[in-house]
């Protein structure tokens, strides 16, 4: 680990101004950051510990949603009875990720901002545009079975590894931030992540020193919720493909549907194409397959990850069948 100066932030304003300095980073749970610091992939000069900030609560919003403080741990969020009853999708997604030990440390904001698990991001002997801008992407022609198939570019085919964020994307969560000048803003979660461009090392729209203060869940939409994850092990593994769906239906037809995928793109991938295909669709296998085809129509495999195109369609179909109790 490179040396750094460790500082505890006593308030939100001082945390943001400390973190706005060059090479400064916030630390909350630290489960991802410390791992990357040991590998010298992350080399902050200043580490701003925000654990003392009063951002650890979950409160009701006037619109009957929930506001989740950025320091709420993944465990606490998944175990909150309001989340379990009204947003079971979110509990399921969180519990599908990491291990009990990690969820006890990992925080809400940190989970959203975790870095990719692309093996070439971790392998410091290989080119990686995220790690060393302009060095190239070793995953394009490498062992890329875990990499992205949607929203890709020839600069980067890394995926975002979060399960929690996939559920939050299906729930239309909003990210509330405060900047180092005190300005606050609300960012739809789908707009938090920057698409692969020429600056793959800059992964979000957040400015230096801008702190995620909370995540707001709007009231849950009508319909049944489900998170389905496919991975190499039965537990404690990142998703090859996951899907978060919310489906309202009567006995014959879908009334409204939302679908977001994990493991396919640089961000949780909300598929408005799948949602449009499902609107008023019959509760049949053909409908579910059509939704999957629509969701993956712009997908592109890179060899080892070609299987994800089929696996994503099948995962969506299985999730739709499960949540609607059909086929």
């Amino acid at each position, binding site marked *: 680990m490179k040396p750094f100066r*460790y500082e505890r932030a006593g308030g939100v304003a001082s945390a943001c101004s400390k973190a706005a300095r060059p090479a400064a980073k916030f630390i909350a749970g*630290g489960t991802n950051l410390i791992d990357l610091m040991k590998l010298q992939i992350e080399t902050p000069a200043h580490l701003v510990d925000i654990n003392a900030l009063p951002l650890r609560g979950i409160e009701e919003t006037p619109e009957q949603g929930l506001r989740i403080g950025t320091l709420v741990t993944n465990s606490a969020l998944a175990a909150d009875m309001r989340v379990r009853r009204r947003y079971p999708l979110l509990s399921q997604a969180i519990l599908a990720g990491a291990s*009990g030990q990690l969820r*006890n440390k990992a925080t809400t904001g940190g989970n959203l901002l975790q870095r990719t698990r692309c093996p070439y991001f971790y392998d410091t002997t290989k080119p990686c545009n995220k790690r060393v801008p302009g060095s190239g992407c070793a995953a394009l022609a490498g062992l890329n079975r875990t990499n992205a198939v949607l929203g890709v570019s020839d600069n980067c085919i890394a995926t975002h590894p979060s399960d929690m964020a996939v559920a939050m994307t299906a729930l239309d969560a909003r990210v509330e931030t405060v900047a180092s000048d005190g300005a606050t803003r609300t960012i739809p979660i789908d707009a938090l992540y920057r698409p692969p461009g020429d600056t793959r090392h800059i992964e979000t729209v957040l400015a230096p020193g801008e702190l995620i203060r909370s995540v707001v869940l709007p009231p849950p939409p009508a319909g049944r919720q489900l998170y389905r994850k496919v991975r190499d092990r039965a*537990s404690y593994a990142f998703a090859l493909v996951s899907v978060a769906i919310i489906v309202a239906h009567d006995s014959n037809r879908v009334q409204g549907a939302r679908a977001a995928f994990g493991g396919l793109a640089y961000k949780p991938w909300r598929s408005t194409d799948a949602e449009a295909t499902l609107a008023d669709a019959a509760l049949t296998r053909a409908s579910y397959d059509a939704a999957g085809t629509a969701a993956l129509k712009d997908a592109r495999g890179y060899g080892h990850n070609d299987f994800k195109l089929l696996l994503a369609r099948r995962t969506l179909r299985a999730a739709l069948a499960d949540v609607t109790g059909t086929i």
Partner: protein
Amino acid sequence: MDDFLKPQVIGTRRSFLKTTGAATLAFVSPPLLNETAAETAPMQSEHVWLRINGRAYALDLDPRTTLLDALREHLALTGTKKGCDQGQCGACTVIVNGQRINSCLTLAVMHADDEITTIEGLANGDDLHPMQAAFVRHDGLQCGYCTPGQICSAVAVLTEHKVGWPSYATADVASAPALTDAEIAERMSGNICRCSAYPNIVAAIREVAEGGRS
């Protein structure tokens, strides 16, 4: 028990090295010699009190020191094991404020106000903690390296279950699930056992969950 295993207040890595002799010193020195002084020299030394197993320890630490390294290298609490050092194996599991965490992925200086329990803190003198006794009874180990982490994790799993936390194995996340073998396996998935003593580990945890010797 030997004095070495019962540290009082140990100041620095240097004083620990003095107490542990040349073999340890020789082991830790080479990496230091291979890097430049600028890379290895701490930018600051942070004074921190750690409360571990009901006892307070004063330490001056390079802020890079993980909680795991503080326990093992500075306090000689070597029951907590370093396996992967990247949060994948669970050998370093300790209980902080009642919750299990990977001590390898957290900085010691971030735990100044916390109550830390390690494997050394579970037994009451010579009386083993019920979970330790159950692991012995069920032969829940072979080489034993992962065992301190397994036991700390298992103790915390029972607390998590008691307060009604669901898991990925819980069909209805709004319910308070029974602690089935599937639930135990899922909740313990952050602790890897290369000897694959899993069936006996699950049996030991099940026994304690059910209230004692079966």
